[in-house]
């Protein structure tokens, strides 16, 4: 018999706790495969967020630290400064990175920390039960914006890639999606490139991955994927926003 597919060695055997139709599991897989293919799993150190991915430290098959809410880039800075040879990455949601952790992500980028950030944007607070996030779309209904997010007062979504790409010391900033197979394949290439740049000591790299939350969006898994394509991507355009190697 020939093996045609197997779970990445970059993931442990712990069953993922994510809801049906959530794309966190796919994103975990892409990160894990990238670390294995680049042959850096043994020197990888993950920093887990607070939010849906809080148990990432149980899933990635490498050393890990659990950070306080929003502080993952600061924790990662401490780790990387002690072990410059380690491949250090944070895995953060939109509440963690774009709200409470705004100062930490902006300043890690400003310092050009040689880290990789996987930023999972599903436009809502998932773990706490579907509250409004800084990335919630205008008009999107959440448990704390039940009439739909109001542009005046509740504001419009923060576009983190666009914001961070203005920071001089960043190396690579890109937004990807995993809502279909071609996009997923492209996302994998992008994530792998972000880690490759860290290996080459090029500095701060961030990949924003648009992700689904069928549970809190109140959509079926299929409709949630469609919502990413039709509703989220027009607000969060995919692409490379910064690339020190040229392009973008």
């Amino acid at each position: 018999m020939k093996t045609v597919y197997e779970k990445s060695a970059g993931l442990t055997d712990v069953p993922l706790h994510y809801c049906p139709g959530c794309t966190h599991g796919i994103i975990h897989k892409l990160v894990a495969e990238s670390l294995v293919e680049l042959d850096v799993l043994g020197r990888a150190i993950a920093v887990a967020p607070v939010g849906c991915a809080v148990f990432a430290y149980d899933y990635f098959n490498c050393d890990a630290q659990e950070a306080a809410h929003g502080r993952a880039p600061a924790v990662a800075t401490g780790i990387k400064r002690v072990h410059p040879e380690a491949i250090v990455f944070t895995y953060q949601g939109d509440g963690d990175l774009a709200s409470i952790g705004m100062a930490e992500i902006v300043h890690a980028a400003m310092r050009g920390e040689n880290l990789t950030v996987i930023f999972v944007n599903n436009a809502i607070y998932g773990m706490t039960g579907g509250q409004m996030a800084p990335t919630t779309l205008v008009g999107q209904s959440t448990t704390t914006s039940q009439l739909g997010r109001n542009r005046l007062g509740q504001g419009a979504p923060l576009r983190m890639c666009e914001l961070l790409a203005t920071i001089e010391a960043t190396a690579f900033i890109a937004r990807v999606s995993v809502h279909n197979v071609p996009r997923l394949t492209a996302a994998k290439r992008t994530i792998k490139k972000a880690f490759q740049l860290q290996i080459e000591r090029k500095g701060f790299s961030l990949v924003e991955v648009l992700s689904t939350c069928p549970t809190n969006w109140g959509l079926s898994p299929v409709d949630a994927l469609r919502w990413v394509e039709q509703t989220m991507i027009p607000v969060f355009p995919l692409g490379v926003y910064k690339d020190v190697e040229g392009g973008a």
Partner: protein
Amino acid sequence: MARTLMKGNEAIAAAAINAGCRFFFGYPITPQNEIPEYMSRELPKVGGVYVQAESEVAAINMVYGAAGAGARVLTSSSSPGISLMQEGISYLAGAELPCVLVNIMRAGPGLGGVQPSQADYFQATKGGGHGDYHVLVLAPANLQEAADLTQLAFDLADRYRNPVMVLADGMIGQLMEPVELSPYVPAADLPPKDWATTGTAASGGRRRVINSLYLYPDQLEQHVRALFAKYAAMERAEVRYEPHQCDDADVVIVAYGTTSRIARSAIEKCRRLGLRAGLLRPITLYPFPFAAFEQVIARPQGFLVVEMSMGQMLDDVKIAVAGRKPVAFYGRTGGIVPTPEEIVKQVRALLGGGP
């Protein structure tokens, strides 16, 4: 090493490097700025790293990352900044990460002022952040002791896998005194850091995770009980204090740090006036030297607690004395340092003399 005239903040920074600290993360705040300035200048010379964080919140989380990666790491701040660090200190205690924190206290509450204070005693000794935990707190009274305790702090942190705080005030931080850095030799029996995240290739394959999340209450209770078993061990082994002229004292002054120095001057003046005062100086504020009071309690007519606060250590002294003798209090706050004369007056009043 020769005796060098140094500022207190510099003595603490130099002692940290002497003790093998190679990582410093911090944010500027008066009156402790000489510590980050010294570290930013001197750490690169010994292969170390200084990072100026965007806030105290970020700084303490950088400390968490570096401590979890196995390094000897220091941060320093002053009262409002230490308040901002409390979330991170709770995580450090919960995840059992060793690190050294320096608080050069200034007056509060709020933005308060930049003059010396001891009003962070409760915050330092009773936990400070959320949840059940303690940090070990060392309170130097002079610059030599500040340097020595800073070196000791790194060993204690590693021994107990716990944050250790050097709690001083703006007076200690800004004062100049001769200091001789003692040759540092780490304690021989410090446990290996076989829990630090280094990458599995470096550690032999088994995953290491730094974490303070326990969603199952029975596991969390077990974890907290284990932390408290560790604190009990600290209480047995790490209590430090200094009695001074207590044997014949009619009044025992209890003071730490800067106020203990002033109390010593006051005691000299008292004794010239025929007033027999002594000093019991806690050096560890947590664990507090409760048992030391048993050695001195028989003789004095009462105790006088002197602090640069409205009375915080006072509570622990009352617990130690347990109603057996009167406990009086004299405090100045807002950045005002009490004079020896003010303390003499208090002693005289306690012993029934006129002013």
